[in-house]
Each structure stands twice: as structure tokens, then as C-alpha cells.
């Protein structure tokens, strides 16, 4: 019996299935995260948050709702968190990173669909996610075809508001997106039963900008060589940022960064001395998906940058806080989000240019491109990315996988061969 059983039961959680899920998490966390050597002490907070993944934070959501606040679930970095905060709501990222009840999900979805979508529905149908059950509203978006159609399925189970994300970045796309921001705001105001004021929205923008600034500060520290934080720990911080309280998270990330600066200045590194520096690019790695990052880092390399939605795409670029009026501020929010370079856009020149910049700025030795099986945007875009990076002489490894562990051996061989290649490149 857990102290949270009554709370979970009230949320409609299947206690038995849920207990099974919670049992597999600690050994997984031990293997992927806690087993790392010389971790920063500031990671203690994140270890604690993860240990309470379905406990304390969910309790906060329940209390927030009891006090009259709303909880809004999202599945994508395009959904503006500041709008949710501005109506007094809490935003929680619901992307799923573990395979749960695929047989249930496949009753409503085709087998050949990406693991992220299927597991999201798996969590819902198996009644093991207290977050989705705590949501007053889910906000979906028309990013890829799979998600777009999935939200129709999910909409039959729970209220879903779907935002239309354009697929190009022309002037009329921007106009559409700015309207979509306003349509979402109206829906959120209705849900929360309150109107947003300019000052309220500006305050929310500042809160979320502060979170971004802290996460960007952490990214800067990942330039340190030898590394002061592992890629897995940085990934964990980003994953937790999707659902933790933003003000508290900002404070904890900044405290972690203070420590990392001391480490950098004092020459205190994680693990060994110089190691190949890998950039991970591609699909998001939602909690608790650490598979590829662990393979890379247990093979003697460090993930120095994540060009993913659970990485820099999530917190790069700030919203202009100084916009003079409501309209300008809403446009500033829209513009910041439209500047995320997801593979759903065409053309998507900005992503490749950004990748090249990151490779240079983070002194990257090789790029590992992580694509979820059946994710058309990222699998197709991989070819062009590979060509351009190889023209720069950057070794590139394409990995297509899902949430199962059966291919870990094969993936390890490929990653280790890539690392061997960077070694011979250095000698050459």
C-alpha cells in the first residue's frame, strides 16, 4: 500500500497495474541514472522529483484543482505554456517514453504507428497515468499525421482542444498560428473561468522565460570539456521540466548550474578525462526513455547536446517580454513558438543550419540521429541532415528504434563503432 493509493484511486487509476509500473521504475532509474559516477549534488532534487513521479507532484495537481485551478496536459513543445499559466493553470507534458499496454492501444490504433503515440494511448487505456487523469483539458496539435489522427481517438475519451500547427513558415502561416494562439487562449479562459490581463500574461511569460534561461544556462555548461554533467542528467532535467512547477524548477536548475560552474572552474568532471562528444538529434525522448543516451554514455562517450524536443528545441529562444500591449504580446508568443524547427515543417532549412551551429559551438565529434520507427518527418529528414553533416566531415550514425529493449545489443555495436571512428578521426 502506498500513501498515495487513495488519491490514485480517486483519479480512476488501476491500482494493480499501476503498482506493477511503479515497480519497474526504480531498477531502471538505478541502471540508467544513479549508476553514473561523480554526478553533481544538484541532481539530488531531480532524483527526488523522479522518485515521486506519480506521487508528490500529482498531489500538488490535485490540491491545485481543489483550490479551483485547472490542469492542462500537452503533447508537444508548440503548445504555449505561458497561456496555461496566465489563466492560473498548471501545464503538464504528457508524452510517454515507456511501452505500456501496446495490445490495448492497438485496438484503437494501427500497429505501424510510432511508439510515442501508441504508448501515450496505452497509458490512458491501462489507467496508469495520474497526470492525464488529472487534466481538465488536453491540448493536442496537428504536428504529424499520427498525432493529428490520434487526437480524434483521444478526444472520445477526454476533452481535447487541437491547435492547428502550420507546416510552412510563410506569412499566412504565421497569421494562422497567431490566430491559433488566440483560439487556445479563449478556450483556456473558458475552462478556467477567468480572463487574462496584460500584466497576468506578461508575468506568465516572464516565469516561463526564466525557466528557459535556466535551462539554456545549463546548456552553456555542457560546452565544458571535460564534461561537468552527463547527457543523461541533462536529459533528465529537461524531461522533468515538462511537468514540474516552473518557478521551483528554475530555482533548482540555477542552483545546479552554480554547482556546475564551480565544477568547471575547479576542473571537476564526470567520469574519465576527454571523451568523444556526441550530439543527439531527432525525436523526443520522453520520460523514462534513456535507452540511447545510456548506450552512448556507457560506451565511453558523452552526450554534449540534445537537438530534440526534450532538449534545446524545448527552451531555445525567449518570448519578447516588452511587447507593449496584449496583441503584441500574443504575437510575440506565437512567433517564439513558430521558431521551433520541428521536422514537420517544409522546407526546414533552419534545423540543419542550427544543427551545424551546435556541432561547431559544442565541439561535437559525431552525431547520433535518433528516429522513432514510423516517424515519417524525422526518418525522411535524416537523409538530408546526414548528407550535410558528412560534407562537414562529422561522423553520423542513424538509429531507428522504439521503446523496446530487444535491440540494445545491436544499437550498442553501432554506437561503439561510431566512437571507434571518432578515435581514428582524431589520429588522422
Amino acid at each position: 500500500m502506498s500513501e498515495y493509493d487513495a488519491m490514485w484511486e480517486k483519479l480512476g487509476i488501476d491500482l494493480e497495474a499501476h503498482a506493477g509500473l511503479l515497480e519497474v521504475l526504480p531498477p531502471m532509474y538505478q541502471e540508467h541514472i544513479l549508476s553514473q559516477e561523480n554526478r553533481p549534488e544538484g541532481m539530488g532534487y531531480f532524483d527526488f522529483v523522479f522518485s515521486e513521479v506519480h506521487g508528490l507532484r500529482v498531489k500538488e495537481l490535485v490540491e491545485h484543482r481543489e483550490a479551483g485551478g485547472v490542469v492542462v496536459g500537452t503533447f508537444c513543445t508548440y503548445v504555449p505554456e505561458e497561456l496555461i499559466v496566465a489563466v492560473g493553470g498548471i501545464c503538464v507534458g504528457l508524452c510517454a517514453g515507456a511501452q505500456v499496454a501496446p495490445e490495448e492501444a492497438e485496438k484503437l490504433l494501427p500497429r505501424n504507428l510510432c511508439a510515442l503515440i501508441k504508448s501515450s494511448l496505452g497509458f490512458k487505456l491501462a489507467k496508469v497515468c495520474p497526470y492525464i487523469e488529472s487534466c481538465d483539458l488536453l491540448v493536442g496539435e496537428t504536428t504529424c499525421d499520427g498525432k493529428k489522427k490520434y487526437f480524434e481517438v483521444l478526444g472520445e475519451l477526454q476533452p481535447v482542444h487541437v491547435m492547428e500547427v502550420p507546416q510552412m513558415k510563410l506569412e499566412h502561416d504565421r497569421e494562422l498560428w497567431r490566430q491559433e494562439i488566440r483560439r487556445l487562449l479563449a478556450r483556456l479562459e473558458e475552462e478556467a473561468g477567468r480572463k487574462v490581463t496584460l500584466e497576468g500574461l506578461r508575468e506568465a511569460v516572464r516565469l516561463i522565460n526564466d525557466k528557459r534561461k535556466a535551462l539554456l544556462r545549463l546548456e552553456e555548461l555542457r560546452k565544458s570539456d571535460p564534461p561537468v554533467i552527463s547527457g543523461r542528467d541533462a536529459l533528465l532535467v529537461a524531461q522533468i521540466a515538462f511537468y514540474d512547477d516552473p518557478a521551483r524548477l528554475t530555482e533548482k536548475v540555477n542552483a545546479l548550474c552554480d554547482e556546475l560552474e564551480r565544477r568547471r572552474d575547479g576542473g571537476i568532471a564526470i567520469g574519465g578525462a576527454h571523451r568523444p562528444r556526441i550530439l543527439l538529434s531527432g525525436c523526443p525522448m520522453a520520460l523514462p526513455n534513456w535507452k540511447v543516451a545510456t548506450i552512448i554514455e556507457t560506451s565511453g562517450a558523452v552526450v554534449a547536446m540534445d537537438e530534440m524536443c526534450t532538449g534545446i528545441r524545448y527552451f531555445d529562444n525567449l518570448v519578447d517580454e516588452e511587447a507593449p500591449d496584449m496583441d503584441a504580446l500574443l504575437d510575440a508568443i506565437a512567433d517564439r513558438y513558430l521558431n521551433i524547427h520541428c521536422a514537420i515543417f517544409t522546407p526546414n532549412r533552419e534545423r540543419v543550419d542550427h544543427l551545424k551551429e551546435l556541432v561547431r559551438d559544442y565541439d561535437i565529434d559525431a552525431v547520433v540521429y535518433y528516429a522513432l520507427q514510423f516517424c515519417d518527418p524525422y526518418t525522411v529528414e535524416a537523409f538530408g541532415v546526414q548528407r550535410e553533416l558528412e560534407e562537414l566531415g562529422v561522423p553520423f550514425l542513424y538509429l531507428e528504434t522504439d521503446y523496446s529493449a530487444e535491440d540494445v545489443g545491436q544499437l550498442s555495436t553501432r554506437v561503439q563503432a561510431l566512437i571507434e571512428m571518432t578515435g581514428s578521426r582524431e589520429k588522422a
Partner: protein
Amino acid sequence: MAIGGLDIGSRTIALVEMDGDEVRWGEVIATTFDPLAQCRQLLEGREFDLLVATGYGRHLAQANFADRTITEIKAFALGCHRLFPQCRTILDIGGQDTKAISLAPGGKVADFQMNDRCAAGTGKFLEVMAAAMGLTIDEMGRIALETEAEVKISSMCTVFAESEVTGLIARGTPRPEIARGLHEAICDRAVSLLKRVGIEREVVFAGGVARNPCLKALLERRLGIPLLIPENPQLVGAMGAALSALH
């Protein structure tokens, strides 16, 4: 100095002893369900100054007796480059995976591709298909060369292809035609993997499946160039592992 190279594959384990870059001797045994016991048997009474392991069982070896490990990719690159210094492309079809590797002129790995998680088009695939036709792999390779007629095997999944073969047998399709179709299917797959890394001469064909004369002939015809095959293609990985000690 005696350097040992141990290649623990999914179907076979190869051990070589090298003195510098010369092979003193080599031996190949089956992996079975207990690779550790097989390795111990192979290593019994043998002393090495350094033992380097490769293959999918390399970490198991390192945990028990090997001094260090390298991947199969690097091992095949080193082994093939030693045997054929002009080698620029390698096709390795082993028991459970297929690799295409392109080498820079000095022998360093420039790029590589591996098959996905299933054993489609590998030695295991041939083994299962031969069994479905009541033949040994050698017999299947021989009869496939007897005919120019082939049936199209549309499935590369070992499980589906086996059903397909069973269906063809039931329809009375001559076994040589089925065997030929199976070899053509593997050839297709290998060629597409090779094309992804780029095909530059010389091309070395290694790994256990390189012993299959039918596949060599089909690949050469398809690629329009001769393939170089090591005298003992199953030892190349172990050789490469041992050679890595020199680098």
C-alpha cells in the same frame, strides 16, 4: 608476442593467435547456447600476452577473460585491410547480421551499415531455409547454382519466408528454383546495404556466408566486379581483433 583474437558471433566462435600481423593458427567452433563454456574450451591450455574480443559476445568475454574489446565493424576493417590492402568495401554476412563497411584508403572505417534487428538475409536465414527444404546449407548453395530459373521470394522475414518456402514446396516448385530464389533475395538485400555505404573496389566478402559459392557468383554478377574472399572468411573478425593490439 602472442596476441589472441576472439570473435564471439551468434553462430560461431573463432580464435586466432597472431605474431605481429601473421596468423599462427586459427580455430572455429559453434557458439551453442553456452558461449562462455565454448570459449573456455577453446582457450584451454592457451596463453596469450593479450587477448582482444569482438563480436556480439565481446562484453561477456571482457567480463571473464578478454583484456579489451573492439566492435565487429572495426575488427572486419582491420582484418580485411591486412589480407587485402587494396580493400575499400567490405560485405560481411554472419550468422545473425549483415554489415557493409566502406574503408578510407588507409583502411580506417569511413562508414558502415548494418541490417535492422531481425536476422533477415543472414546465415541464420539460410540455415532455416535449408532446413525447410531438408538440405544442408552447402547442398542448398550447390543446387541453387544448377538452375537459371528462380521463383521470386517476396518475404525477407525469416518466419514469413519459411512459410513461403513451405508453400512453394507444396505447389511442387523444384527445389533448385526455390534455393535460387532464396539466394537472389539475400543478394538483393546485401547489394542495397552495400549501395548505402557506396561500392568501391576492391570489395571483400567475409563472414561465414562468404563460403557459399552461389551467393558469391550472384553478387559478382549483380555488381559486375569480382569479389575477394579470404581463405578462411570466418577468421577475419578474430584476426582484426588481434591486429587491433598493434594499433
